[in-house]
């Protein structure tokens, strides 16, 4: 499905050559690290100390405890909700960014999207706590307007985590979509309009199908990042939102590296599985959107 139409097949073997730089970096660092992690996963950590010999106990502990399955559920749920919201907000944003022509406005928008990425997660969350907190800005407004009697708990809840994640991951949705929107030939939108399609119809029937690739990329990025996010859930989840990465973080601190390793691999498998399914589902549309080639 991926080799574009009308491309001489003869350079195919070169594929590996092109992968060389990327793979060497990964092997040099990432795979090596993952190997170490794997070796950890078989070590015996009992009563707060490492014992000689190896075990598969860490795996059984993890897969056995239904607590872990709850955590996995929360993790996936968090990832799914965040990704969905990012897509819903991010695509229109990208579309608008692509449509406006006044450079100043566009630059300011890019800046707005970009700025949060420059503030460390600690500082950001601290901004959120002042916004969403029980005594935060929003609640104070609500109270002063007598719309509510007691503060609405937004912070230290699932909702708070989602808001913060969407906030910081939105650029990872917008930028890929914008980049693909830029490759769309505007005359197609004109043709659609000419054939009687309203803006919305044109969007749904031409623009979206032809830029679905950007959306897919955005979703992959956002999902991967949101299910592996540690700081935001633990800072804004107030302990109520227990996700795998936070668990892993604690295990590392608590010296229980074997379990941390197992959990890391679990998360990796989980994410790859979800993304795999996701791309499988979208194979059709994406392939079609490539008729362009």
């Amino acid at each position: 499905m991926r080799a574009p139409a009308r491309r001489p097949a003869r350079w195919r073997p070169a594929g590996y050559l092109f992968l060389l730089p990327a793979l060497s970096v990964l092997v040099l660092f990432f795979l090596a690290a993952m190997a170490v992690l794997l070796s950890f996963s078989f070590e015996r950590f009992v009563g707060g100390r490492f014992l000689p010999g190896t075990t598969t106990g860490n795996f059984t502990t993890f897969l056995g405890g239904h607590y872990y399955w709850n955590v996995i559920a929360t993790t996936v749920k968090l990832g799914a909700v965040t990704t969905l919201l990012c897509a819903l907000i991010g695509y229109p944003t990208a579309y608008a960014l692509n449509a406006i022509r006044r450079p100043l406005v566009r630059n300011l928008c890019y800046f707005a999207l970009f700025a949060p990425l420059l503030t460390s997660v600690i500082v950001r969350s601290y901004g959120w706590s002042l916004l969403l907190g029980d005594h935060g800005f929003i609640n104070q407004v609500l109270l002063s307007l007598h719309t509510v009697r007691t503060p609405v708990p937004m912070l230290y809840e699932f909702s708070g985590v989602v808001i913060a994640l969407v906030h910081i991951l939105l650029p990872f949705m917008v930028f890929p979509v914008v980049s693909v929107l830029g490759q769309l030939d505007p005359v197609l939108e004109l043709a659609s309009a000419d054939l009687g399609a309203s803006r919305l119809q044109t969007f749904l029937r031409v623009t979206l199908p032809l830029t679905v690739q950007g959306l897919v990329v955005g979703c992959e990025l956002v999902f991967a990042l949101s299910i592996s996010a540690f700081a935001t859930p633990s800072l804004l989840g107030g302990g109520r939102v227990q996700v795998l990465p936070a668990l892993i973080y604690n295990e590392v601190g608590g010296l229980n590296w074997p379990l941390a390793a197992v959990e890391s691999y679990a998360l990796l498998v989980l994410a790859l599985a979800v993304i795999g399914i996701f791309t499988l589902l979208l194979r059709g549309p994406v392939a079609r959107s490539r008729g362009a080639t």
Partner: protein
Amino acid sequence: MTSSGHRVLGLVLGAVAVFMLAPIAIVVVNSFNSVPYGAWPPPGYSLRWYVNLSQQTDFADAAVRSLVVGAVATALALVAGTLASLALIRFRFPGKAAINGLLLAPMIVPRVAIGMAAFTLFVRVHVYGTLWTLMIAHTALILPFAVTIISGALLRVRPELEQAAQDLGASPARAFLTVALPQLRRALVAAAVLSFVVSFDEVDASIFMVSQADPTLPVAMYNYMQKYQDPTLAALSTILVAATLLLAVLLLRSFGVSGFAEMVERPRGQPVIPGEADV
């Protein structure tokens, strides 16, 4: 688009901008807080945290270090990522799916775990604490962003233009560089920007990989936060944000039209649906 049409787009952008900037605004306001703890509204205002920041000399070094690491890693990731994308999109070869997954992995495995393992690794091969290891590490960590974004855009590049270039005598490589890359302009910028900030913001793994003696900016901030709990970091963040805004404005000036946006905008004057006037 009808005027109502772009009123809607305007609203979307406005809303998003507010949403994105609100917490930042709070942070900025809070950096002028007179008390060390965050409270809304701040009990009083002062510059003490900026003063304090100016005394934290090590932040400057850390910032430079982060910039260097970020720049190098981004450059490496872009090159390696573009080549990898080419392989994934343009060639058919066994094991592609696996490699695809492998290229995504560093983005998924929690950084803490990677960092922990990496530390062990580095110590074992006696390279712990060197800057280049950090660069390679960051390259690996941001590679997924480059690959995903670039290959996504590469899917939509029209090969007939490259064929035309080759017909005119350009080698496939040359044709790609001179004809395909320009079509990938936006994607490359997007990849670069996102990769860089990810590297520039990376703390979970770096904290294990850098020697405490010469930390990167995020690690330095993490350390500071361990020591003192006050809005000095808010002040630092404010300065960072202000700096980028300044940069954006400068680009706006020097590029005449629209700095960053220019790089990612559709070719100027390209037809858009009539009525799609400026927002």
